[in-house]
């Protein structure tokens, strides 16, 4: 859903509404695995392999996948916390790191991240107000002004500054700490916030509170979210578009309705069918998928899903499938639904693996 009409004009907007806020091109990161007596490189983990996507202004792009699919590595690559082997970022039309583009530190002002572990992502020795004020302070704001901003932010995320600002992280509940982390991410007034499993560790009743807060903040502050999660329900609830990753590659991307109602990739279908049903009368009867995801150290050649795919043919082991429009495009099909699968019959087989 391209919610152009809902996007407010941002004074920092440079490229106009049609210019995606972030374009990711051919992002790649291989980690060496060292071992043996001489600590030589014995293998490579292909954590993120040729990942490209774009995030539109004002949308929520969900990235979903299982452990080892590279979604968290992608987040850290985008924040430049680890250096990509190759690939480039374009932020609002400006290439990042290039001579004519914006610098990495400028990018980090515009793009911030909330981590999964609410406890370890806050300095245990700092009162929370100082943790939030830290970044503005280091970027040149006076101590008093930074503190005032931190207290405004605390109020915005639903924590009364008078009561909470001098608290230490261990004196807060998990939900309260995650609110502090959100406030900290907003302290530099970013335009894009990466939420890496930001609600996954919370209790269900608290998760709903934080999701409401995130939606409210997005509307108020004109934010764009990159929402990374393994929780299919949460991604469906909050995202406008979805990116499905498997073993370091994107296997399918498209509007959330299209992905959830007509998944084309056999993996996406299996993933959705594995979701607990919430209805005791419609329990899962047949296994959507057997086995665990393969080890990313030596991923299968060609299509990485082929070892678990019931449709796999010879071509799947030889050629890496690229992201293309599905074969049987109906008239009403959205144009930005793309799938990385060679086989038309596999793409069209919707319903076969559906919940019994």
């Amino acid at each position, binding site marked *: 859903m391209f919610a152009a009409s809902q996007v407010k004009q941002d004074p920092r907007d440079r490229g106009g509404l049609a210019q995606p806020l972030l374009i990711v091109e051919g992002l790649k990161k291989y980690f060496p695995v060292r071992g043996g007596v001489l600590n030589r490189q014995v293998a490579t983990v292909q954590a993120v392999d040729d990942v490209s996507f774009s995030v539109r202004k004002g949308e929520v792009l969900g990235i979903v996948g299982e452990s080892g699919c590279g979604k968290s590595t992608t987040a850290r690559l985008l924040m430049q*916390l680890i250096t990509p082997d190759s690939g480039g970022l374009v932020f609002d039309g400006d290439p990042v790191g290039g001579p004519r583009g914006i610098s990495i530190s400028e990018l980090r002002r515009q793009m911030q991240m909330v981590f999964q572990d609410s406890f370890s992502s806050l300095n*245990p020795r700092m*009162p929370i107000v100082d943790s939030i004020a830290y970044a503005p302070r*280091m970027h040149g704001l006076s101590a008093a002004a930074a503190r005032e901003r931190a207290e405004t932010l605390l109020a915005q995320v*639903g*924590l009364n500054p008078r009561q909470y600002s001098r608290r230490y992280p261990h004196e807060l509940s998990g939900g309260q700490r995650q609110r502090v982390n959100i406030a900290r991410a907003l302290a530099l007034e970013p335009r894009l916030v990466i939420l890496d499993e930001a609600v996954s560790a919370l209790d269900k009743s608290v998760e709903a*509170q934080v999701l409401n807060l995130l939606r409210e903040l997005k509307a108020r502050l004109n934010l764009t979210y990159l929402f990374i999660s393994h929780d299919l329900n949460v991604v469906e609830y909050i995202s406008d578009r979805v990116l499905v990753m498997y073993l370091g590659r994107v296997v399918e991307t498209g509007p959330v309705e299209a992905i959830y109602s007509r998944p084309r990739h056999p993996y996406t279908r299996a993933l959705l069918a594995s979701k607990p049903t919430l209805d005791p009368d419609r329990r899962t009867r047949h296994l959507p998928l057997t086995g665990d995801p393969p080890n990313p150290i030596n991923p299968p050649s060609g299509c990485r899903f082929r070892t678990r795919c019931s449709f796999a043919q010879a071509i799947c082991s030889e050629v890496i499938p690229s992201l293309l429009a599905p074969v049987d495009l109906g008239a009403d099909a959205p144009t930005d639904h793309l799938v990385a699968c060679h086989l038309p019959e596999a793409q069209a087989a919707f319903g076969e693996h559906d919940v019994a």
Partner: protein
Amino acid sequence: MAKLSAFDPALAAPADVLPAQPSPGYWKAVGQRLLRDKVTLAVTAILLSIIIIAIFAPVFAIQDPLAGSVMRRLKPIGTEGHWLGTDETGRDIWARLCYGARLSLIAGMTPVMISLVIGGFLGVTAGYMGGLVNTMIMRTMDVFYAFPSILLAIAICGLLGNGLSNAILALSIVFIPPMVRISETVTTQARHLDFVEAARASGTTTMQIIRYHVLSNVLGAILVYATSLISLSIILSAGLSFLGLGVTPPQPEWGLMLNSLRQAIYVQPLVAALPGACIFVTSMCFNLMSDGFRGAMDVKLNK
């Protein structure tokens, strides 16, 4: 930020699960725990009195620690005018112990402070930078680790010649590698915590991150370790003096006193044991104090 409204009750976080009292803060909590720890309080008091006696030695000891007399050699404990007896040249033991505390404490604590500054700096740098810098610093330290610390100290002292400052220098060199290793370990752990990543992601400089986020989380552990090193340092420096490599006679120093009283062990065993007892008590107290600090600082931060 101006467009943001103030506290909005509609989005308010859940009512608090904790009492709304202001938090005492980390160091205050550590202090409160220390006050409840009787053993640590006691050893700290002993150490403080030793330090006070050392500083105000002329007040506590009226005798001259260097003035001997052949007439008053090796008097037992309880002798009139020399309540702890005299040594083999007739010098007052109490005076020598009081003045000796100065040199012994200096020789014990200075190497630890020097190695704390140098080793701590190298260790934090190695831990935070990682990669090649880490490899270079840590492999260099490994070379020093190949020698037992006492042998290394003796070798360096032998090379530099005897004297207090050379002994201090030798011990500093000996203590740098373990100090580097401990600071590197705690820094490496802290560096991979999410809040340091978050600080990096906010685009602040390395120095700022180390100052605000890394040091506050590693300094405690490093200081505790340094305190425990003091006891070893006192023993080692006394050992060097005992071997004639540290403080030179006739200066009063516990290790040196132990050496010169050694011949009197059959004549006045109690007097001869006094310097050793001082070394033992002081180093033990430093050790127990360091244990107490470690316990008090190990506040379980997770709820």
